[in-house]
């Protein structure tokens, strides 16, 4: 067993320098690597390019990095929940590349799978297609999209072991599973880190080969963005 365990978030993120490109898992606030984001805020790493489906909310998740102007560029599909983001984008302070969500996921998966580019119908005929190669397959137009290239990928899982194997829970799997192994170095933070051998190999979602460093997050707030309930009748 090759041990990927590091002691804490500081050790896991020690070589993340200004100006790097980082993929961050999560959908909305669900499954975001909370501990790592807080550490980036603490470190004050700046000029970051962040690839993440959303940009957090004003006071949680990536919104914390936006508040401190640590992000130079965001690559996302939906940023509607963050007023500070919208302000920085409309004023031109923040560079933004909006990407259709399925394309965003596939650009991660392609990087993870060693595929340099792929064709998708999403965005054909829209401004997303500008400057991209278009080709017809089976009578339908598609545009070419390239795999992401990033220095770091930071993902959050429910359980992990020292070998870097990951298991996700519920819809917190989202982009975490696609981003694991999609960058040069993948850092996984987990709610529960166990010794190798304790997780059933049949239940592993992401094999440890895709993960270089793993640590157990100190604390998870797991904030709910839209708490919706029904009445007991």
């Amino acid at each position: 067993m090759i041990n990927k365990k590091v002691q804490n978030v500081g050790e896991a993120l020690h070589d993340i320098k200004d100006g790097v490109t980082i993929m961050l898992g999560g959908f909305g606030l669900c499954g975001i690597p909370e501990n790592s984001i807080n550490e980036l805020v603490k470190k004050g790493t700046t000029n970051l390019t962040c690839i993440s489906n959303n940009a957090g909310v004003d006071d949680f998740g990536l919104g914390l990095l936006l508040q401190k102007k640590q992000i130079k560029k965001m690559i996302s599909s939906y940023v509607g929940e963050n007023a500070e983001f919208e302000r920085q984008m409309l004023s031109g302070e923040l560079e933004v590349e909006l990407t259709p969500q399925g394309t965003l996921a596939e650009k991660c998966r392609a990087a993870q799978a060693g595929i340099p580019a792929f064709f998708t119908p999403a965005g054909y005929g829209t401004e997303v297609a500008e400057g991209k190669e278009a080709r017809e397959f089976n009578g339908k137009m598609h545009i070419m999209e390239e795999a992401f290239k990033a220095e770091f990928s930071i993902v959050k899982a429910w359980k992990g072991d020292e070998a870097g194997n990951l298991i996700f829970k519920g819809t917190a799997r989202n982009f975490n599973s696609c981003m694991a192994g999609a960058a040069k170095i993948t850092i996984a933070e987990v709610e529960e880190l166990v010794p190798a051998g304790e997780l059933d190999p049949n239940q592993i979602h992401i094999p440890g080969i895709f993960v270089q460093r793993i640590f157990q997050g100190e604390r998870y707030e797991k904030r709910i963005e839209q708490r919706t309930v029904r009445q007991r009748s």
Partner: protein
Amino acid sequence: MALGKEQIAKRIAKEVKDGYFVNLGIGIPTLVANYVRHDISVEFQSENGVLGMGPFPFEGEEDADIINAGKQTITTLPGASFFDSALSFGMIRAQKVDLTILGAMEVAENGDIANWKIPGKMVKGMGGAMDLVASAENIIVAMMHVNKAGESKLLKRCSLPLTGVGCVKKVVTELAVLEIVPEGFKLLERAPGVTVEDIIKATEGNLIIEGDIPEMVID
């Protein structure tokens, strides 16, 4: 009487057939799930990675790890599954999802749709909408017929940046049900008490009216 949001959702629910996998967008489309007949089998897909979505949880049973694409807490039904975002859009692109219901700011008579950006004013992003409209075979748009300024949202050509081209099949508004055919918006039904003249006035795009237009039946 123009329909309310719940009634639009009720009308659209009639389009959901037995055996369908359905993706619901944010807003009025989310309400459709409440009105689908109970004697048919339908599974709701949410692009953030769940098939077999159930109702909202009871208070105290919310799980931060189980949400829908609108970031709302949800539950799952027997037979449900979770998966990652790439697989989720795989099933969308591969047309395993039978029906997509989403909102729009504008729809054009050729089936173009715009719903993600107002240049210089509002940019929320396209989320999964571009992927959904580019691949889904059956797309129904739930929207208001006119905007707050009273201008038609059913146009000859969209004025806003497009989400997809030539993809919308049907539109349900507070005034009417319309099908998109090669010549434009074909009027199928009108809301109870709404006249054909009301609909003509509210529609900028080419409106096709053939014979008597029945009133919608909403239980």
